[in-house]
């Protein structure tokens, strides 16, 4: 199996661009990634594209070929849909194609256009990631099901809204200076606690924003990197994926996310690494409680111990394990289908040293990306490492 390098990364600004189509957004991110890699479009042998709500928001399915033409590539192109983990899954399939020797250069990425419909439309679109028969018809929303997880977590382990507020404060602080971030402003714990409730115990500032945007990465085999003298010092060390029952009520434990744990186990084993080896990570903080559940599933904290990690300063910029130095979904934004490869792009730049927060982890050599779909019925975990 060949080593897979992250040869280039690209992203649009994440924000509200109701007038921009997904193809337009992905065209910007994908061509930026190709330029960053120094790879011509005609070298690309496959496009792995993540998108969640194309049918419901834009009336557009069959988006793989559109994504390829948007970046000037004529190669087999497939759209992957796994809710908020769509481009995490697309990235994993792209890694497997190169690792298996089926392709030397591929593009993985994703895009989402969400703000062109009103809040009710977005809420309805996002809710389709839940079980339509048993959850959505009963009034479940995306924040609503995470609120049930938070309620179950508090009941099982304790923790407070103030603990969760520190996650939001941390991630907002990290986004300052990130040119791609939806929000670049500090907030305080009191802002989070006093914000209007969305689904109790979660309020507006416990939730990521609804963002439009796109991201892309170029992957290349070790031989292609050497032959073309690419500057590609970051490689994929391990990949993992897990699934779980779709409806939250059907899970063994409402306060745990075993799909993410399974993905992490697979990625760590493939890389020959463990949680103690990770220097920086980007985790899927669609809600503040989601960051806590992620850190516990990934093995950084025992169940019940992760809720106060940000409050204790362990996961802040200056902590032992900086988490979401990009600003996370919370402040960088969450254009659903773009999030997984956006995390890969942020980690790659942290490890290369050209990230706005690179000085928070100057000696980092291993990064972890955790991307989750729905209430973590889908999860991918990827480990990146500096190779030289």
């Amino acid at each position, binding site marked *: 199996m060949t080593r897979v390098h992250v040869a280039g990364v690209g992203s649009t600004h994440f924000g509200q661009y109701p007038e921009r189509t997904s193809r337009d957004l992905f065209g910007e991110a994908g061509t930026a990634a190709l330029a960053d890699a120094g790879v011509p479009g005609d070298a690309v042998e496959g496009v792995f594209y993540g998108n969640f709500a194309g049918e419901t928001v834009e009336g557009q399915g069959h988006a793989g070929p559109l994504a390829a033409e948007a970046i000037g590539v004529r190669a087999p192109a497939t759209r992957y849909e796994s809710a908020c983990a769509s481009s995490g899954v697309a990235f994993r399939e792209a890694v497997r194609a190169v690792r298996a020797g089926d392709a030397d250069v591929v593009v993985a990425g994703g895009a989402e256009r969400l703000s062109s419909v009103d809040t009710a439309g977005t*809420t309805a679109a996002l809710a389709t990631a839940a079980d339509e028969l048993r959850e959505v*018809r*009963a009034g*479940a*929303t995306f*924040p*609503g099901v995470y609120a049930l997880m938070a*309620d179950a977590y508090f009941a099982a382990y304790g923790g407070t809204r103030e603990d969760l507020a520190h996650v939001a404060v941390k991630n907002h602080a990290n986004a300052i200076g990130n040119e791609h971030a939806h929000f670049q402003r500090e907030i305080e714990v009191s802002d989070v606690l006093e914000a209007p409730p969305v689904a*109790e115990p979660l309020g507006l500032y416990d939730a990521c924003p609804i963002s439009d945007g796109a991201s892309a990465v170029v992957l290349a085999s070790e031989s292609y990197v050497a032959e073309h003298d690419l500057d590609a010092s970051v490689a994929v060390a391990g990949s993992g994926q897990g699934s779980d029952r779709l409806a939250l009520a*059907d899970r063994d434990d409402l306060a745990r996310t075993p799909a993410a744990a399974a993905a992490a186990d697979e990625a760590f084993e493939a890389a020959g690494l463990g949680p103690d080896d990770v220097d920086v990570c980007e985790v899927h903080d669609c809600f503040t409680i989601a960051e806590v559940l992620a850190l516990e599933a990934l093995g950084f904290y025992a169940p019940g111990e992760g809720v106060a990690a940000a409050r204790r300063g362990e996961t802040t910029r200056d902590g032992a394990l900086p988490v979401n130095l990009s600003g996370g979904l919370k402040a960088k934004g969450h254009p659903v289908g773009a999030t997984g490869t956006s995390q890969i792009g942020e980690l790659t730049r942290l490890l290369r040293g050209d990230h706005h927060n690179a000085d928070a982890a100057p000696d980092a050599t291993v990064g972890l990306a955790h991307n989750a779909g729905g209430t973590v019925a889908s999860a991918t975990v990827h480990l990146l490492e500096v190779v030289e």
Partner: protein
Amino acid sequence: MTDAGHDDFLDAVAEGEGFYLRCPRDHGSLPPQHVCPTCGSAELVRDALPGEGTLVAVTRIHVGTPAFEDETPYRLAIARFGPVRLTGRLRGNAERGDAVTVDVAENAAGERHLVFE
């Protein structure tokens, strides 16, 4: 539109004869299922849903789906009924840990769903 299996389950709950599917290893599931989603057993039999369940997680939703726009804010809960957990609207003031019964209601889009009281 009819959703075979799921609608039969809702009909039964509405008539006070709620049921779940049980496999030989006592895993519970809801129809339609051809096999047990936990262990894959094809030997599924109907068993009566307990008359009372226990609330295990509760939220109050302030930004609702379009089908619940007129009722927002509303409460959503997960309740354990024997070997299965159900998701439904929660009426009244019951809290996590309290006992509830289950019935069927319709939202503004005409979709039937479970309600706990």
